[in-house]
């Protein structure tokens, strides 16, 4: 289990990028209501940071090429991305947002 950041750091309607030691790549966190979603921050198509993208509902749109990734499944809605990004199970322990090191693609 890897600690990412305090729950209080996550602001509704924004994407927070975290790059914890112990994980190979940066992650993007989104808080919607009581739930926290966590996906890989790097687009599955080219090197773009999804946290620079646009959040609409449960989708983050890649800032470069407009593929929209679903926070719940990691799946893109349209090309150029064709592969999903990894999705991580989030648990909040004593106010800290934590994930297991292995996400699921």
């Amino acid at each position: 289990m890897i600690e990412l950041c305090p729950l209080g750091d996550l602001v509704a309607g924004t994407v927070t990028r975290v790059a914890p030691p112990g994980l190979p790549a940066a992650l993007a966190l989104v808080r919607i209501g009581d739930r926290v979603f966590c996906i890989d921050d790097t687009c599955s198509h080219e090197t773009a940071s999804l946290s620079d993208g646009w959040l609409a509902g449960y989708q983050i749109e890649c800032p470069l090429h407009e593929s929209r990734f679903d926070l719940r499944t990691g799946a893109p809605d349209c090309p150029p991305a064709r592969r999903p990004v990894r999705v991580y199970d989030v648990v909040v322990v004593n106010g800290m947002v934590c994930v297991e090191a292995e996400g699921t693609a």
Partner: protein
Amino acid sequence: MTVIAVVGTGLAGIRAAETLRAEGHDGRLIFIGEEPGRPYDRPPLSKQVLLGETADLALLDERGEAELAAEWRTGTRVTAFDPHNRTVRLGDGDRLNVDGLVIATGVRPRTLSCDLPESGVHTLRTLADATALRDDLAGGGRIAVVGGGFIGCEVASAARSLGHDVTVVEAGDTPLRAALGEPAARLLARRHIDSGVHLVTGAGVHAVTGGRRVTGLVLADGRVLPADTVVVGIGAAPDLTWLAGSGVACADGVLTDQWGRTNVPGVVAAGDVAAYACRTGRKRVEHWTNARDMPVVAARALLADLRGEDTTALPVHDPLPYIWSDQYGSRLQFAGRPGPGDRFTVVEGEPDGPFVAVYEHSGLVTAVLGVDSPRSFTRLRAGLRRTWAS
């Protein structure tokens, strides 16, 4: 059983076919494509492919291809369409009966009208074009790029990063002016020079010299520009000869309404080939995003037509235009449709580094340009999308 033929196996054709299946077409689906091989994506052709980098070009993986359950007639052209008998004739002499037809044949690059040597003069459209150019670039030497559009700029950038001596010859005042407007184009032109690319503007090409192999260019003002490889990026046009006599209305492209429908029932067009009706009259758009999005609308309209449903209840194709380009290690992003006199203001950053600029008309933002500023660009584009939709 309903038979739909998709002519063209580029992005637009694949997107149309995927939509047809997703929206319930369970009859035959036949791809007809001039190029042999599997469908591939074109943006990397002027970037990673020229640099010899690995790029995932496939538009369909095995599963996607299996899900389409299509018949593939590739490596053959369509030579005619008869709307009365609903038949498509192929270059190999075959004739197919079809109920629906998707025209997604794209465009062919223009080349210079003067005499050309047998080798060393390239246009860039297909994977075969890109690998031939890549092989020539591997030989080094002096590279002349004719035309300062997106293709020309990206090729110049790639050739320069391979260490070559590169000259861009642009007939107008500055590269990318037609796409981005004068002020933005002027700012970006510096990047060629800063990267060590020679920029020759206001210069048409009078002749291409060489015997079997190209040796250079003679410009309209008499200047001679030695070159071991010439790349011509002066635009492209659809090949509509196979539609002559078919009754499908064409001008600069296949004419469609805002749903991608042609004047012939059961025939739609999408992507680079389609000149579609939109809020500003008629547009034929040769950008990747248009080839991604328009076929979805056109495929839905085709199915509605074939089912006798009301197409006009469906969403129209009228997106906020969006393009990107990778040049000289920078990412350019541009959204909107500015007018010629719109006010251009850099709102963030500096012109020689990352920056964001807006185009305005009567106090309204009409377009946004971003260079290496995806976060700010994305936020301004979101505002532009709201304006565009209202």
